């Protein structure tokens, strides 16, 4: 039996910065996972991924990442996506640095 489709977001790296970005429901790219559009339908998810892949002058390496719905929006279900959401663990760099500067 095919495995049931689990919720996903479209994520990629920003072309200029290399920074992790997420596709929002209004076709923007956000640096915050909580802004991402959560995709629960497989066909729709594939269309959204195609939409992302048609923007090579904006981003690199788009793919669908697993998430779970949390109280404040989507949350990663795998530790790799969690690190992409925050930044490295040896320095407060990456997104965690940007957030501390807000």
């Amino acid at each position, binding site marked *: 039996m095919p495995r049931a489709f689990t919720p996903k977001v479209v994520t990629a790296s920003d072309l200029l*910065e*290399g920074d*992790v970005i997420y596709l929002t429901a209004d076709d923007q790219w956000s640096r915050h996972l909580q802004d991402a559009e959560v995709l629960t339908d497989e066909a729709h998810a594939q269309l959204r991924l195609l939409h992302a892949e048609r923007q*090579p002058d904006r981003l690199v390496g788009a793919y669908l990442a697993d998430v779970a719905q949390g109280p404040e929006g989507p949350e990663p279900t795998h*530790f*790799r996506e969690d690190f992409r959401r925050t930044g490295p663990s040896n320095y407060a760099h*990456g997104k965690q640095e940007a957030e501390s500067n807000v």
Partner: protein
Amino acid sequence: MYNYTEFDHAFLAERNAQFRAQVERRIAGQLTEDEFKPLRLMNGLYLQLHAYMLRVAIPYGTLNSAQMRQLAVLAEKWDKGYGHFTTRQNIQYNWPKLRDVPDMLDALAEVGLHAIQTSGNTIRNVTADHFAGAAADEVADPRPYAELIRQWSTDHPEFQFLGRKFKIAITGAAADRAVIRAHDIGLRIVEQDGARGFEVLVGGGLGRTPMIGKVVRDFLPEVDLLPYLEAIVSTYNLLGRRDNKYKARIKITVHENGIEKVRALTEEAFVQRRAQFSGVDQTLLRDIQEQFAPPPWRASSQDAFDSLYESDPVFRSWADTNLAAHRAEGYAIVSISLKAHGKTPGDATAEQMRVMADLAERYGHNELRISHEQNVILPHVHKSDLPALHAALKEAGLATANIGLISDIIACPGMDYCALATARSIPIAQEIATRFNALKLEHDIGPLKIKISGCINACGHHHVGHIGILGLDRAGVENYQITLGGDGTEDAAIGERAGPGFSADEIIPAIERVVLAYLDLRHSNAETFLQTYRRIGLAPFKSALYPETAVAAE
């Protein structure tokens, strides 16, 4: 040290201009990522987990002070104030912006540095013994040969699209500090009947299929170096597999075809290649060798060193661990640890880079080395200067006395940075170092090499760690496998897997159990971890690692 010629400078300028145009075209949307990716990789630019990463070559790990200062400028101006020195004697910047990379490459070219062939399926940065030209046990300085190989391999049209990346390491001493047995080609300078040549090994490598290199030639005359290398690489280029990237390295070619076949094909190709070398390579080699002439040694009293060694236990401890024997009377080789307890192995801040550059200029004949163990070496320091040098290092947080000890850990960037990684390496290294520093056992334990990789590609050389740690993803959780008994020296060995892996929470106590078991099992303080392991084997350590299993089996 080798000084770039006008040709070298012009070559770098042209190459950088070419890449600048490629970046502009990518940003303008005139190149797709599929088109751009091989171009950026040819210039050392990766896209990692959080950002781009620029890998800069430090040929055979040798730098002068001006080059080190320029690395500091890059760290400050285009990165986050630090750089990461790697097990390939390179430096990596983890946060560059795409638009800035051409400027970074131009800044590197100003001091004769570049990022060419630090990526891609080509001959990578040639690595060498980090004590080259200084070590007391050396037959000859390997760096002129490494420079010759660098010039031969850079943009070599036949070897730009090999089946996989290709790594060459060279040492001039019997003691292998360049891990030559775990390289695609390993070269060791030897002398036979008064003639200089090389022992040539082929087919070593780590990664998912670790193998120790095999001797393909006991003695290759010096004059035949380039045609013989060309024969090996061309044989691999033809014979090596391209159907499966995991089976494409020359170690697999050697394994599947046998060393005899690889040797026969190489020797056959060598005859043809040899005829094409007119001898200009040997003229070039002589020119290069002149540039690696040793600095003028001075004769000074070492009373100041002796006196401080007797009176200051902190200095004595540092001298005992961080100094190595130099070929010249009154001199020492200084290893500067980039492994302060709890810090990221291999990282240096821009300020620390400048301090090391200043100290090299003042006390070290303007020369620095990057070791494959992610430390910085000042190869020529007179002992009379060591007290002042140590004081300056202390002030900069660079005087950690732990070279070769348990906290001198090799760690790849792991999942904190690397897009290929399956688990983190850096925090594990930090925690081990912090834990054993707290236990105050480090110096009692003595020589012990822990090496950590965050994935099966083994950039952290875990297979040849006395204790190796491999981070993996097990059902969405970081998990760490332990191997024991690995060795990267002239007695090279691949470590044995101890058993099931440990979670991130369990791995530090597990390492502690192994080390405490060693302290119980060793004959005396003089018996190292590796010697004990080789004497008693895996079983006692396995019992320490998995006490529940050991009890159940009783």
